[in-house]
């Protein structure tokens, strides 16, 4: 596997769906438009599909600046922080609330930052 992942606080995704006004659909109906695996249950637990894939858009070409230029950040703003290969990066979770996933490269490694 050449993909890496960062796992953080979860259970937030659900609320975004509510706020976009999506209604609950059953998994089979909503997935008929794409080629993702059609699953309504994994183990003993149901899978719920509330939005079409990519309805919450990931960030695929992330841009970064140094701290001195980051006038858009507030000191009290919550972030996910990563130090890897000598590089430190911060991701505002207020921003990730609207995107859920950042597909990034850190120190040459592909990293998915998820929220």
């Amino acid at each position, binding site marked *: 596997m050449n993909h890496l992942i960062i*796992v*953080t*606080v*979860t259970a937030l995704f659900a609320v975004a769906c509510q706020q976009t006004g999506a209604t609950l659909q059953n998994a089979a109906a909503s997935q008929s438009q794409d080629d993702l695996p059609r699953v309504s249950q994994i183990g003993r637990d149901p899978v*719920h599909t509330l939005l079409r894939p990519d309805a919450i858009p990931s960030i695929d070409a992330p841009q970064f600046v140094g701290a001195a230029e980051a006038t858009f950040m507030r000191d009290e703003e919550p972030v996910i922080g990563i130090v890897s290969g000598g590089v430190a990066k911060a991701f505002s979770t207020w921003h990730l609330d609207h995107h859920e996933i950042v597909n990034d490269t850190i120190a040459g490694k592909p990293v998915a930052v*998820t929220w």
Partner: protein
Amino acid sequence: MLWRDALVMYDRTTRSLWSQIDGKAVAGPMKGERLAEVPSEQTTWGKWKRRHPGTLVLVKPTLRGSPYAGYFADPETIGVRGSRNPDPRLGAKELVIGIERENQFAAVPLGIVEKRGVFNTEAWGVPLVVTRIASFVARAGERRLTFDSAGHALRDRETGSIWSLESGEAIDGPLKGSRLERVSSKIAYWGVWARFHESEVLRK
């Protein structure tokens, strides 16, 4: 897509489905595979940039808060479907530091760790030191260690050595050059963590 009240992602290469909680593929060609985890921490921008002055930060619009503020404020509801707490040892919405080592799991209420700063504990017979930033096996070779906070680092009571929270390496003192084994440690809602892992709950 949601499973056990947690995000399910897909990858564009194989179109497999992945659970965010443990990075495992739950359906599709990659089913059963697990992504490697990069350690991360949750903090505030102000604290992060003081500790990491050279940090980069993701460019974004200026924002004033989170659309999830109401979700945080409601202690009962989990997810959109009003799931029940799977394990009443802790509150469903209580934040925990979920710890994993060699397929064994434990959870520490985040409040305990924040109150003490450094939490010396034991799970599955293994001594651990848990902090909000990172967690380690509290052992150097065969020697068991107990830690206190030392600014942005740890100091062990047994030798007085100073240990980096970033790398787990002793950067000063008699054990300089030794390295602690890092354990996976992440903040999660108890009500979600408990649905994924059978976990010891550590309170002392």
